[in-house]
């Protein structure tokens, strides 16, 4: 599996979901590939006789439609369950961060009197997060559409001007993670990176205390 189980609770859930989809894919895809090759080899033209000219077979068609509907229903149920968890959005979490995307970097404001971190393409900002607790985010854009994408969290959310969207992340594993902009936003789209530093709750609290009172970090 690409990337391992993921660094957040949400990512672990998405990772398991992808595994279920992969199983379904291997079953459906494998059966179909097999049938295509089997027919190509077994029914290759051998002589000039005209093969039996049947036009259909209702039982086969019905069974296949039924199977397809069943598979799709099961996948939808699993998907919907994971979505309900990943889309949870708790504005009264202890740590709340406002993300603003702009051409061509990010601003992270720790709400409730915390620091404001602003980056540039040459000096990408670092988003410091605690592990083991829910962090709530509000995201918007100052100009064009961007997307806040952390590949190892298996997650992205668009930053849209004039619209604010909320989401939660629960980081599980401490570490430094790569972040990029996931929606083309102009010339320096490829350089609109950031990093995420996930630390233990004590380290995070210490960092927060050092950064107060709120001051913008100059680029």
């Amino acid at each position, binding site marked *: 599996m*690409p990337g391992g189980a993921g660094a957040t609770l949400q990512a672990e*859930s998405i990772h398991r*979901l992808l595994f279920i*989809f992969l199983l379904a*894919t291997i079953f*459906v*895809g494998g059966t*179909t590939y097999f*049938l*295509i090759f089997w*027919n*190509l080899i077994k*029914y*290759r*033209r*051998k002589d000039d006789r*005209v*093969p*039996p*000219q*049947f*036009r*259909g*077979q209702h039982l086969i*068609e019905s069974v*296949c*439609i039924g199977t*397809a509907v069943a598979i*799709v*229903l099961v*996948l*939808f149920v699993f*998907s919907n369950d994971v*979505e309900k968890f*990943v*889309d949870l959005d708790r504005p009264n979490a202890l740590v709340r961060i406002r993300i603003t995307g702009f*051409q061509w970097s990010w601003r992270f404001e720790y709400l409730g009197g915390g620091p404001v971190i602003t980056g540039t393409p040459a000096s990408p900002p670092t988003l410091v997060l605690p592990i083991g607790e829910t962090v709530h985010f509000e995201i918007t854009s100052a100009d*064009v*559409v961007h*997307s806040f*994408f952390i590949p190892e969290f*298996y*997650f*992205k*959310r668009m930053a*849209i*001007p*004039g*619209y604010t*969207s*909320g989401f939660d992340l629960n980081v599980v594993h401490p570490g430094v993670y*790569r972040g*990029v*902009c996931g929606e*083309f*936003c*102009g*010339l320096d*789209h*490829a350089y609109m990176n950031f990093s995420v530093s996930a630390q233990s709750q004590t380290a995070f609290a210490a960092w927060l205390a050092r950064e107060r009172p709120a001051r913008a970090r100059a680029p």
Partner: protein
Amino acid sequence: MNATTAATLPVPPSKPLGLLDWLTSTNHKQIGTLYIVTTLGFFGLSGLMAMLIRADLTVPNNPWLGRQLYAEMFTLHGTAMIFLVIAPFALGIANYILPLQVGAPDMAYPRLNALSYWLFLLGGLVVMSGLLTRDGAAAAGWYAYAPLSTTGAAGTGQDLWAVGLLMVLASSTMTAINLIATTVLYRAPGMLMWRLPIFVWDMIVTSMLILMAFPPLAATLAGMLIDRLLGGHLFDPSHGGSAVLYQHMFWFFGHPEVYVMVLPYFGIVTEIIAVFSRKPVFGYTGFVLSTLAIAGLSMSVWAHHMFTTGAVLNPFFSAMSFAIAVPTGIKYVNWIGTMWRGAIIPSTAMLFSVGFLLNFLLGGVTGVMIASPPIDYWANATYFLVAHFHYVLGGGSMFAALAAVYYWFPKITGVTLRETWGRLNFWLIFIGFNATFWPMHWLGLWGMQRRTVTYPDLPHWGTLNLISSVGAAVMFVGVLVFLWNLWVSLRWRVPAGDNPWDGFTLEWATTSPPPEFNFERLPPIRSERPVWDFHHPATSAP
């Protein structure tokens, strides 16, 4: 229909028709030929842009092409392939073949048909003319989200893009009307709707989709021009407009558009598989009904392109997207059932059709994955998505387009394409295509975002990108072999005759190429395979 009938038909003119004749012709066969040649031209241009993109991405940390030109290249590559190649090629084939398959003398509105072509050609040239302007061509991506494309993009390239596309949209809408009218009004005696070839059914449904989906894009582009040129703020949030509205309007068009780009090719592949398995289509009625289901459902899934906005009702669109997987997947039952217990002939057209089956399946299953919003949060706007849509549109529609050329080239020109060069053509493109796009699934899930002029030197990223670029080069050679085959076959002509494939449908009942008004006489029509019934009376259905 047989040699003696062919000898009494008028001989086509032996010298090529003059420029004035091509400029003023309203005959569907000439217009269809113009479409096919023009789309092949745009395909070549767009393919070269893709080669530049792959050259830029071969090595990490190396934005060799430059940020501005790179953005123009991926914008025009996507725009051209979608608006100027895949859809118009299908409409061009339909232009040529549909009137023949229904037994009509021409399209219902010949002058409107000619107008469609010239609007398409000029519209495409207007889009591309942005390359000649001082600030360059459109560079906001093929879907051009506002406000990047409105307040965030100076220069006339973006305006030319919108204006040119408005013309192309008008062109396709007119063709859609023409195709529906021709099929409704000008079918041959006995050609009931339920005896229409599958390709014709797929073109009718495609035309309905065009009628439903293209006007919203026209409105969106008009809105973009209002914002850019006339001081409007429809999509500008800083003055009360809405960026999310742009996405809703665009994708309401954008999703049916992908089915416009795929349904004609389902029809083409279905016919070819049937002819080269020497059996009728398996499950004709189910096939038509599932095509109609796809069309309807495709109008209700648009915001699965907006799952990551947080601004739409994800479960509704997810449910509809999973639903549409059923009628699409069921077609494999039809295709495999057609091959089952048949007598399969591995002609080049059949090879490309089987390639379609294999590639489109992979694109289809990745599509079902991203119908799930949580998986889409991971995969959207990464190379996983790029892999998905290239597998369905490239591995799918492009392969079927090549199959269509190998299948109908004899009917259009009177000569066959060489089978040996055809096989080489197929294998180069099949291997090259898969080498190019298979690695992208991994790159995407590892986090390589799309539209990035360069990427960091993370483990295996460079290697996979290199494989992808080499694959693109192999495909390029495959396209050269294709062009070579065209040239060789036209230069050293091997006459094809009326019906080289023992085909089923009415186009094989007339000469190659057909006379001006298509048919001197018609066989009786009692099923969806009138020509097969005529030549194999012992096997016809009662």
